[in-house]
């Protein structure tokens, strides 16, 4: 049962076409990762989902209603890329405010805020003013505001941007927990494809204001092809060039590239072992690794397949959004 339905939605800012006939459907309980090039229209899409803007044409339905309606927004939690918290308030006061507006009963509010602070790891800094928070702490607080109340749909615009590894790990734990233990629908944008592969059941690639590819992560991986990438590190650039020349002569290899002492060659999984062994001791291979196809391939295929964005007179591409 779909909880988000976007039907042929277009949105322009002046002459810039941010979204161009985008359609997407997301089932309840799905964790959807949205990725794409900068200016592809992800933030515009997220603002429509959060009910902040209306589309120029097409229809956006979230939780069975129009997200610009107040009651529907009560079921959505939106975290913008830059939440811009007022620097003179403390983290606790901000969460308390969100709990109050989200109608958390007064008698449970403090306990609830305390639990959210604990979840995002801000208990120790709860009573410090946000102006003194680091970027990572601000992001954690933002995630905290999204967790206040009873979220049904989380719309998170690049929630891990600027987070340190510990912060990213904690974010992953929260998302995994929500994903595994509840039927909350999560839509988040990220440039880290490994993050999407790890956390998401589904993924969508947005290119030039439209969804180029969307579906279960596993399907996208398979659609990207069977080829694996063999990555070899040699002792010198000369040795690497010799190895690359050797690999290019092999029937089993596809594309072969070299950068410094590293050579990468695409081939079928069954051929990978023979390919490495075939180099023999003469090439002085220091290290090698075999990488399976991932979302990166799907992303590049989607971007490559899209027609080149035309440039207007100002030199701004069609897909660039405000």
């Amino acid at each position, binding site marked *: 049962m779909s909880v988000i339905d976007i039907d042929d939605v277009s949105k322009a*800012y002046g002459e810039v076409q941010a979204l161009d006939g985008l359609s997407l459907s997301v089932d309840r309980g799905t964790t959807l990762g949205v990725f794409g090039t900068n200016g592809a229209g992800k933030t515009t899409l997220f*603002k429509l989902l*959060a*009910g*902040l*803007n209306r589309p120029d044409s097409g229809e956006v339905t979230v939780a*069975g209603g129009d997200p610009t309606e*107040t*009651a*529907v*927004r*009560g*079921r*959505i*939690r*939106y975290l*913008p890329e830059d*939440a*811009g*918290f*007022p620097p*003179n*308030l403390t983290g606790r*006061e901000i969460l308390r*405010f*969100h709990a*109050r*507006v*989200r*109608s958390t009963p*007064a008698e*449970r509010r403090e306990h*609830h805020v305390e*639990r*959210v602070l*604990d*979840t*995002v*790891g801000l*208990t*120790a800094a709860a009573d410090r003013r946000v102006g003194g928070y680091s970027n990572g702490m601000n992001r954690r607080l933002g995630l905290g*505001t999204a*967790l206040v*109340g*009873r*979220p*049904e*749909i989380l719309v998170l615009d690049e929630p891990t941007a600027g987070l340190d590894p510990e*912060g990213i*790990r*904690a974010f992953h*734990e*929260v998302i995994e*927990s*929500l994903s595994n*233990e*509840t*039927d*909350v*629908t999560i839509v988040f944008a990220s440039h880290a494809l490994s993050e999407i592969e790890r956390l998401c059941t589904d993924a969508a690639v947005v290119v030039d204001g439209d969804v180029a590819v969307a579906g279960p992560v596993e399907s996208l991986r398979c659609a990207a092809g069977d080829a694996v990438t063999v990555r070899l590190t040699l002792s010198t650039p000369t040795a690497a060039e010799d190895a690359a020349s050797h690999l290019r002569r092999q029937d089993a290899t596809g594309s072969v590239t070299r950068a410094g002492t590293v050579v990468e060659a695409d081939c079928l999984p069954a051929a990978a072992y023979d390919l490495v062994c075939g180099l023999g001791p003469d090439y002085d291979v220091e290290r090698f690794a075999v990488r399976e196809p991932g979302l990166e391939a799907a992303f590049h295929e989607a971007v490559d397949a899209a027609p080149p964005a035309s440039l207007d007179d100002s030199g701004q591409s069609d897909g660039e959004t405000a």
Partner: protein
Amino acid sequence: MTPAEDGPDTSADGGVATAPASGVAAGSVSGAGLADSPVLAIASREYRLAVRSRWAAGVALLFALFSGAVVQFGATAVGPGRFGAVVATIAELGVYLVPLAALAMGYDAVVGAHERGSLELLFALPVSKARVVAGVYLGRAGVLSGAMLLGFLPGALLTLWYVGVAGIGTYAATALAAVLTAWAMLGVAVLLSTVATEKTHALGAALAVWLWVALLHDLVALGAVAGLDLGGRAVAAAVLLNPVDCFRVLALAQVDVVAGGFGSVLAAAGLSTPTVAVALVAWVAVPVGVAARLVRRRRL
């Protein structure tokens, strides 16, 4: 980050709550008491923010110096019998100070939040944009009133000292008229902030409004009344069209003194205190109401 040892809390009544199984809108405001009203929540947040900024302290200090100096030097010079002259001085100087403080307090209310990035998060809450604007206005109006009344306190104490209880009623009425005028000008500032696309534009517009209400309006009105030989109704209309003139009328109505300039023609206007007070209330309601409507068109 140090999440809970057993992982993030996902209990329904704890930290990360689950979505309700039914389609009932979570976080709806139905059944919430007045204390839990989203408008009051936003107003309280805005109040806290404004109180912690330097503006509130600055306004309080400015009005304290203003009221203290006027009463100290005025009351000792004219004596208790001519306390009206002190009130007239407050009215004449207040026409510059009151709108300036209110416009400075409100010009960045919406556009400032937009530039900072916090407006998106506010508008994503289950509260209409109009209510967000109303809450922001109420919070700032609360701080402005508090700061002004605190600022008028030294003048009140000095009035008690020099004039006695007899002067306090007049002084208090003048102070309250100043607060009501400040609310009106704050409403105008919030409206400017709602339609402005940049904070600097809002600041420029606020300065232009101050120039108009504090200086130019009276010159234009006086010129029109004298040059076109307009009657009392025109004078009344000119007064009601400027909240600052409304303040002047309310303040001067307390005393027998009639100040010079536009004040000298006010007697012909025949405006009653309730009429002027209602006009000031309209000056609060209309700009805030228009801002609440226009904010829906604001592009995020």
